[in-house]
């Protein structure tokens, strides 16, 4: 798990996650809002709505560096995204 490879189908692997290859901007709302599992009705990724722009920025850039294509998401686009999250 520490290596980002998740567990089975329920907890998806971060390694090679499509979000980390070209869809970094969608991570802001995924992290802020959380998400219902597409595999099991009782499982939910919790919302981390208490995280602020800078924290989300650090988190996303860390994920991108560790398991993605190393691209960086500017804090301005995080700020814009937060406005639009459900």
């Amino acid at each position, binding site marked *: 798990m520490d290596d980002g490879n998740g567990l*089975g189908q329920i*907890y998806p692997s971060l390694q090679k996650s499509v979000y980390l290859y070209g869809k970094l901007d969608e991570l802001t709302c995924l992290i802020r809002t959380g998400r219902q599992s597409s595999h099991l009705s*009782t499982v939910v990724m919790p919302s981390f709505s208490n995280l602020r722009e800078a924290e989300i920025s650090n988190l996303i850039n860390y994920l991108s560096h560790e398991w993605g294509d190393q691209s960086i998401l500017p804090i301005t686009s995080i700020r814009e995204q937060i406005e639009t999250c459900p």
Partner: protein
Amino acid sequence: MNKIYFIILGAVILLVGLSSCSKGDIGPLPFIGDRVDPDGNEIIHKIRPFSFTNQNGEQVTNATYKNKIHVVDFFFTSCPSICPYVAAQMKRIQDHVADYGDVMLISHTVDPKRDSIPVLREYAEKIGANHDLWHFLRGPKDDVIEIANEDYFVAALEDEDAPGGFDHSGKIILLDKDAKIRGFCDGMDPESVTQFIKTIDYLRGTYE
């Protein structure tokens, strides 16, 4: 003559040394929970008899696990915090003991309301559990919480303020073939689980 003694002595020391190495510095395991009551009688601690249902819809009791070493944890599928992490460690243990035949894993849900048998089945399936080796057990909530606290000594309670509505520890417990507690580890700490896996192997060795 003396020479022969030295060779034998050397061989004995080498063998003893090797065997203690291969057991990874694990000594005789304690019987956790044994105690003496106020009248001076020794109380042997073991998990009480139970009857629950597993993810295959089968009724299971302590008799089902007779003559098996068990590895036990407490969880619930909607747990948003530590459980996925502990489940990954249980999966690691499952993969290690897969071919043993005398070791089984048990995950007790503390949330029977949401964790119906089909939900447990689906969860087990999708995290890669082997349904014969790793049982996900459902029973009355109060019974499960009681055995967690009183028999397994791992805190578990319903708490509105805890993430997901239950507060419980990420401990993984080792029971011997007589349902006596012989070890614990912290399912949030992979190092501790590595040591625990060696402890399982050590315990198996004591039955040989």
